[in-house]
């Protein structure tokens, strides 16, 4: 068994090596073109020349997407004029998919490493860790491969990106509402703080003059590295949360809710205040800040954050949070300082809400305070409810379902459709959201526990398809 595992992994390593070798070598397109496009036909065919020229131009611009787009068109339109031998075909294949093959190779390497590890280390906990590692690797390389196959602008990737971000937002809200039993509706406010902090510090100086057009370029004239800005976004949100928590956390359930809601609205007003214009650009759009172009980024960031939250919840502090949720008096009698722990939960949740806000800003490519209304908070709250109060994997799962159905699966409900001449009734703009909110009401009324209740995915249920979400948690 052991020997078999090791041999298998060695074979895999070889395969990976082969893939990597080809993917790297196949990267010089212009020479490849000269081989496959015969000169004389070039002379005759204007269109062909143009197509080849465009490819070379886009190579010069180093515009990956454009290059691939033009290459694909060349191969479609002039398939008859191009002659390639097997090797050229192979090269071309590797050129067109070289990201994919590289990612695949990488995954194979990890897999073989895992195989060896599992062969050598027998203990239960190591085995678990290995499975986890493989699953994570599978998730991320999977995302990367899919992205390069379907293109990063496809609806699927859009949904995945937004879903990952909402997952973080939902989990951070769940930490507060589900695990600590504090009914806070301030999420949107803290997201706003995060989004603005991030945006303000990463707008590139060149376009500041144009973004802050009414405030002659604004005050901030430098930019921070993305990661620093993101963490700063979290810290800013956490700081405000700390200040707000001091008075508010002494309030009881629904008074707390309405007070936090109020604070969110106040924050929104402050950020729109003209007097702060040089920093916040008043009520106008912030844009031209650094954004992400691959889904891996949001997945990585929110993955790490969710993992941290999960660790916190399963730590001794997390247990105290749950104790407070279940019975404040008893918790206090067990020597748990209510205020300190509530404050801790509130600040932590807001920290991650802030980071989520920053990611959302990156996803939207523009931020505006006006968008962060209480409706946004409600949306996330409903995700948490659907996923199940007090279940991380539930929130993650629910976020992806929520985003997918609102952005994608239910879209068709918004378009007037004809079957032959028969006009399908009811279908028209806005119907999607109606169906959607009906579903939500159904969940709230009849499946009060949500998808997961307060359970989590366990390693035993490995067959669960979307377990990727939880694995990161």
């Amino acid at each position, binding site marked *: 068994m052991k020997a078999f595992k090791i041999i298998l992994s060695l074979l895999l390593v070889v395969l990976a090596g082969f893939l990597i070798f080809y993917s790297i070598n196949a990267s010089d397109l212009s020479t490849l073109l000269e081989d496959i496009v015969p000169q004389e036909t070039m002379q005759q065919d204007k269109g062909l020349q143009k197509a080849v020229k465009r490819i070379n131009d886009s190579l010069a611009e180093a515009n990956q997407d454009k290059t691939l787009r033009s290459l694909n068109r060349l191969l479609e339109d002039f398939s008859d004029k191009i002659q390639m031998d097997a090797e050229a075909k192979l090269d071309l294949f590797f050129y067109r998919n070289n990201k994919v093959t590289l990612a695949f190779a990488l995954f194979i390497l990890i897999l073989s490493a895992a195989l060896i590890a599992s062969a050598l280390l027998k203990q239960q906990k190591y085995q678990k860790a290995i499975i986890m590692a493989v699953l994570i690797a599978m998730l991320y390389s999977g995302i990367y491969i899919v992205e390069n196959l379907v293109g990063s*602008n496809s609806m699927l990737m859009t949904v995945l990106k937004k879903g990952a971000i909402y997952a973080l937002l939902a989990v951070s809200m769940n930490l507060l509402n589900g695990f600590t039993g504090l009914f806070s509706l301030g999420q949107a406010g803290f997201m706003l703080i995060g989004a603005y902090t991030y945006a303000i510090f990463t707008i590139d100086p060149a376009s500041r003059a144009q973004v802050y057009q009414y405030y002659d370029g604004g005050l901030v004239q430098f930019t921070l590295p993305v990661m620093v800005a993101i963490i700063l976004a979290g810290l800013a949100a956490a700081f405000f949360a700390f200040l707000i928590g001091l008075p508010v956390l002494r309030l009881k359930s629904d008074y707390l809710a309405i007070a936090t809601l109020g604070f969110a609205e106040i924050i929104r007003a402050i950020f729109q205040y003209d007097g702060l214009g040089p920093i916040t650009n008043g009520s106008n759009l912030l844009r031209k800040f650094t954004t992400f172009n691959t889904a891996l980024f949001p997945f990585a960031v929110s993955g790490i954050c969710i993992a941290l939250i999960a660790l916190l919840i399963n730590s001794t502090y997390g247990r105290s949070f749950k104790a407070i949720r279940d019975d404040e008096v008893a918790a206090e009698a067990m020597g748990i300082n209510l205020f300190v722990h509530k404050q801790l939960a509130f600040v932590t949740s807001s920290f991650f809400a802030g980071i989520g806000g920053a990611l959302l800003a990156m996803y939207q490519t523009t931020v505006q305070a006006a968008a962060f209304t209480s409706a946004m908070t409600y949306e996330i709250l409903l995700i948490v409810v659907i996923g199940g109060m007090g279940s991380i994997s539930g929130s993650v799962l629910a976020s992806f379902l929520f985003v997918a159905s609102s952005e994608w699966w239910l879209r068709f409900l918004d378009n007037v459709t004809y079957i032959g001449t028969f006009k399908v009734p009811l279908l028209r703009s806005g119907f999607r959201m109606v169906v959607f909110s009906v579903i939500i009401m159904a969940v709230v009324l009849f499946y009060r526990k949500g998808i997961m209740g307060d359970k989590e995915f366990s390693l035993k249920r490995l067959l669960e398809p979307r377990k990727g979400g939880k694995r990161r948690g």
Partner: protein
Amino acid sequence: MKKFLSLILILAMLLPTMALAEDYAGEIVIGIYEPASGPNGAGGKQETLGIYYANYVAPTVELSDGVYKVKLVEVDNQSSNDKAPSAAQQLVSEGSSIVLGSYGSGVSIAAADIFDAGGVVAIGISCTNPQVTLGNPLYYRICYLDPFQGTVLANFAKDEFNATKAYTLAQLGNDYDVGLAHYFSKAFEELGGEVKGEEFPLGTSDFTAYLTSAVNSGAEVIFAPTSTEFASQIITQAAANGITIPILAGDTWDSSVILKAAEGTDLSISVSTFFDEGDTGAAAAEFVKGFKAWLNDNPEKLANNGGNDIVAAVSALGYDGYMVALEALKLADSGDRDDIADTVAEVTYEGVTGFIAFDENGDAKRDQAFIIKSDNETASWKFVKVQSVSDISK
């Protein structure tokens, strides 16, 4: 017997689909990125109507390798900057060769980066804020810009009402409102006037306070370049509060919504716009005639136009926008995004709203605006004058 009937029925259903099956070289998708709901919904719908009419007039485009059918794909950006990106994303992912829109500058700015990432050329139709094209290589536009419009209106305020004090009212965070108000104030102050400016948050319905402070500020004109939803409230409340100060506004107010709200009141409302229904130019006259006819034979379209057949300037612009898009396709001689991106800058077109050619920013070289005034008896627009940069400069 039943079987037979059902068979007939099925055939009947199939017929139209067969009728469609003509032989085209292919299909080219043009995306319509417009608000159909929200504060700008009314205007967005009128602009969209213009586009659809144009498509009805010219349903196909002829390229060197055959005649292509033009398919219009429409998304609703809900006039909100945070809904905009996913709407834009949808157009990109549904393979639009070129995108038209939007009514309202904010949503256009918000979507610019998405279109840019997708490599799709977008042609702004009535988004007048400079930011739309500034720093967005793939965003073009066929209307004039706010600095120009603002100046025009400032001069009009000065010449017509010889005003020295103005009050501007804009929606908080709406790039169109804020921008236009900003340029108006700048121009007005250069002309030696003074301006008091205020902004109201989205969802405001009580404007009496603002109108009162307008009166208290002693303004001789109120400049309120808001979206139609708020416009109608401002007008009704101004009437209710017996405001007599003349009201000025930008192109958004050129809408039957305004006329309805102002009907029977004694307010003086003047608006700058792209196009005048009464334009006697051959192309324009023909367009107006055709468009009215097209509207009137379909109640749904009529409803989308606000329940009447008054031709809004944005409809005319929408029409031109579509035609420009076709020109771009012809010039690029393909439906490929990159081909279009390479050549679109050279497109020129003699539209119903005037001659259209792009400058280095991708903005249309426009030098004249129509100014019209509401006639509250007949609920229609009266043409006042054509104002162009040249008259201003002197």
